[in-house]
């Protein structure tokens, strides 16, 4: 394992730790005195610090250290968490994630924000804070022997001020690293150094498992150590030293009441350096180190311990330390290259097509008794579908990390606009395709910023309107009828339709005399080149408007809609397909072509009586559906497949509901089948076609186009003389 891949692993872990951190912080906001939560936050920061130390990422280490130190004070109940401190923690969390990102990408980060946060953090600490910060580097890989502890008098002061009981304990530590410990880049010597800082340490190497020279595998871990340590610290502290190697070694720490035994003569710490070391770099560092006993003598109680120390009474720390190590270890998850998953998904897609082909071929054979064969085929179909769902589930991920990132956006946006806002998330665990999540980050960020900037009012206005001074941005996700619904709502003033209309006219987006319904006015927001901000704020008025959001969502096969109530707030709803690879559709005939239309968009199918169909104007048709007149759109005509004269009254109507129009009936020639189809992009080899979202391959190997009802209806309504429609048309081409 190379140093680089260890580094990658560290940053992957950092992502998870940062997620846990953000989650913990938001929990803290609700229950600031929940020790479990505080411990979880502390652990996240601490683990990042520990990992960063191993890679000599000093800035990250120093920052995490300052953060962690204050966190520790909270943990020890020396500091109460108030609103101000909570806000500081949030900002620290954001800064930590920035630092991790900059360390990972090797980019430079402006240190001003960092410095001011560190200063603020330090203001929560006593005068000893500075000294603590210095001592931390003691556990880093590039630590050089005597350097870290250059303030021995302060150490002593720490010890005294901590009101430590002078009682010394004798611990027996048995430590047998496993091969994985070395493979992960850990160095036992550093652990010994850390132990030695707690008190006089005796180390004895156990060479019993050392094989013959011939059968010697330099990558194997064969040496184990028995150590005895005299220290005033608790067993928990010892366990914490081994926290990072947990699960990678056999570790036994026992408190023995015996008098300290004298070190055996052959217990030479130097032998640690002769231990086969898979990582050359680490080995060379280790060799430069002084014998572990030396630092032990210099620093009886290194200040670091002040950080690590936990009161024995702490509920969560003790069980973890005492729990048998088999129950610990990482969650049973698997990191798999995304490419492999995608290849598998593609292959399974082919399997589904193949299954459909076989079914169709067998049907064509017209065998006399096919009952049992039909059963087997049905089973095959179900199995293929199971496999497909299973594979898709691999790609599905909860939206939680995405939502958590948004809490930061809300914080930053409310800071920048001097408004008070909080984010409430609902349905964090809703699972969505990974690609969707990734590509949703930008649109969501934009919409959240908009919600704070344009949606919410200032506290003063809110109060005068009888609302809570703190605005609420609600972000929710849910699965509903085969789609994912994501809603971003604010409890602000609602859309100012008069201003929107005026703006659209001013920007020449619509003709001044056009009569628009309320939903139509709302939808003007999605037109390219529209921005309501009176002045360009540095937050949301960057020239990119909601049209960018709309395009991004449409590119994912989704839609975005808007609903607003005056004085109550605005809600944006994004509807996305569950997966980007497969969907359920009706196989239909349009003219003489076979096409597929997504089932999710169809409310109802109607075989109309000719008396239900009415003509309005010159060529528009309406159908009477239980008393309501619904406009009919002829799919073939809309696609330009047939002349208008070919329209007829028979055929089947598919009732669909779209954002633009409440209800529309799409006329097709016939419905043949309902089946799951694999979505194939048209754009990869050709270009997007209006009214068609993608293509699929049918059982006979032929390609069928997948229709996009929303676009079809827009196409049908396209009228070059209507400026509003013209914009819609323009949008189509850009989508």
């Amino acid at each position, binding site marked *: 394992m190379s140093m680089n891949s260890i580094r990658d692993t560290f940053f992957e872990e950092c992502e998870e730790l940062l997620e846990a951190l953000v989650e913990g912080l938001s929990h803290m906001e609700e229950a600031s005195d929940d020790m479990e939560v505080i411990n979880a936050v502390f652990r996240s920061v601490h683990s990042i610090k520990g990992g960063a130390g191993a890679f000599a990422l000093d800035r990250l280490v120093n920052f995490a250290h300052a953060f962690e130190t204050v966190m520790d004070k909270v943990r020890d109940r020396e500091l109460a968490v108030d609103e101000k401190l909570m806000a500081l923690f949030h900002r620290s969390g954001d800064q930590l994630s920035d630092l991790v990102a900059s360390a990972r990408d090797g980019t430079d980060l402006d240190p001003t924000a960092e410095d001011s946060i560190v200063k603020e953090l330090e203001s929560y600490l006593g005068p000893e804070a500075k000294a603590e910060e210095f001592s931390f580097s003691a556990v880093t890989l590039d630590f050089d022997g005597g350097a870290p502890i250059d303030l021995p008098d302060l150490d002593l002061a720490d010890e005294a001020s901590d009101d430590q009981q002078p009682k010394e304990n004798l611990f027996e530590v048995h430590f047998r690293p496993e091969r994985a410990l070395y493979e992960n880049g850990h160095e036992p010597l550093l652990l010994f150094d850390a132990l030695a800082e707690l008190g006089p340490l005796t180390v004895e190497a156990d060479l019993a498992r050392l094989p013959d020279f011939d059968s010697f595998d330099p990558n194997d871990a064969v040496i184990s150590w028995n150590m005895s340590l005299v220290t005033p610290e608790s067993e928990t502290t010892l366990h914490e030293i081994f926290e990072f190697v947990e699960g990678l070694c056999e570790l036994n720490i026992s408190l023995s009441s015996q008098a300290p035994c004298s070190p055996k003569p052959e217990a030479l710490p130097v032998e640690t350096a002769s231990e086969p070391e898979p990582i050359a770099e680490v080995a060379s560092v280790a060799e430069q180190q002084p014998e572990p006993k030396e630092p032990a003598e210099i620093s009886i109680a290194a200040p670091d311990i002040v950080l690590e120390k936990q009161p024995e009474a702490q509920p969560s720390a003790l069980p973890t330390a005492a729990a048998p190590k088999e129950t610990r270890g990482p969650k049973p998850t698997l990191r798999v290259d995304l490419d492999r998953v995608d290849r598998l998904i*593609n292959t399974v*897609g*082919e399997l589904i*097509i193949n299954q459909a082909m076989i079914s169709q071929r067998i049907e064509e054979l017209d065998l006399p008794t096919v009952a049992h064969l039909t059963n087997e085929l049905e089973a095959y179909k179900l199995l293929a579908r199971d496999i497909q769902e299973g594979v898709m589930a691999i790609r599905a991920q909860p939206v939680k990390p995405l939502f958590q990132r948004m809490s930061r956006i809300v914080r930053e946006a409310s800071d920048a606009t001097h408004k008070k806002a909080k984010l409430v998330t609902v349905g964090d665990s809703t699972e969505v395709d990974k690609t969707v999540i990734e590509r949703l980050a930008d649109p969501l960020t934009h919409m959240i910023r908009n919600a704070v900037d344009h949606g919410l009012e200032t506290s003063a206005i809110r109060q005068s309107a009888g609302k809570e001074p703190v605005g609420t941005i609600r972000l929710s996700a849910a699965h509903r009828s085969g789609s994912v619904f994501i809603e971003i709502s604010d409890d602000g003033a609602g859309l100012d339709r008069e201003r929107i209309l005026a703006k659209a006219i001013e920007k020449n987006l619509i003709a001044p005399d056009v009569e628009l319904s309320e939903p139509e006015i709302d939808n003007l927001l999605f037109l390219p080149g529209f921005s309501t901000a009176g002045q360009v704020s540095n937050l949301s008025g960057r020239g990119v408007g909601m049209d960018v959001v709309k395009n991004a969502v449409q590119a994912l096969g989704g839609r975005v809609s808007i609903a607003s109530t005056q004085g109550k707030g605005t809600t944006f709803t994004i509807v996305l397909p569950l997966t980007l690879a497969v969907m359920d559709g009706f196989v239909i005939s349009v003219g003489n*072509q*076979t096409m597929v239309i997504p089932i999710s968009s169809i409310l109802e199918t109607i075989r109309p009586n000719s008396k239900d169909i009415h003509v309005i104007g010159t060529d528009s048709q309406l159908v009477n559906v239980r008393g309501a007149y619904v406009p009919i759109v002829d799919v073939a005509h809309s*696609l*330009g*497949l047939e002349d208008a004269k070919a329209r007829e009254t028979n055929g089947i109507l598919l009732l669909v509901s779209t954002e633009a129009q409440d209800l529309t009936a799409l006329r097709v020639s016939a419905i043949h089948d309902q089946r799951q189809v694999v979505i*194939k*992009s*048209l754009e*990869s*080899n*050709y*270009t997007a*076609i*209006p*009214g*068609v979202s993608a*293509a699929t*391959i049918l059982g006979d*190997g*032929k*390609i*069928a*186009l997948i229709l996009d009802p929303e676009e079809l209806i827009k196409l049908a309504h396209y009228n070059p003389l209507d400026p509003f429609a013209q914009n819609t048309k323009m949008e189509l*081409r850009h989508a």
Partner: protein
Amino acid sequence: MPDPAEALADTQFEFITFSAGGQSYCLEITQIREIRRWTPVTALPHTPADVLGVMNLRGAVIPIFDLSARFGLGATPGNERNVVIVAAVNGTTIGLLVESVSEILSVEKSAIQETPDIKSEATKHSIRGMISVDDTMVRVVNLDAVLENSTGAAQ
């Protein structure tokens, strides 16, 4: 279009010759993925007449162009010998309907003549050069040009 073979100076070039719209054309063999028998394709709405539709090529959806119509020589009449040449350009795969495929042509680089200045700029653009074979002239198709004004490259 960067021609990978052009860098290797005086090597032999191999072309596949075919006829479209009654004229003789050829494509470099390295650009051709496969040659398939013509099967009916799925028509696309809102497309020009020279875009016949899309075809399933082992799970991929590829557009099929009528090369004759594309060059303004009228639609290719239906015939049993019609074939689709599957070619790859700049990462996209397309199919070209032609009347028939003739032979493999092996020529020196020097045997390829530049397209002379002719009246139609579009024609000059879509023909990379010419090869003389037994008194007939074989036109070397510029696949880029075929693709350019087809897939809305203007977008």
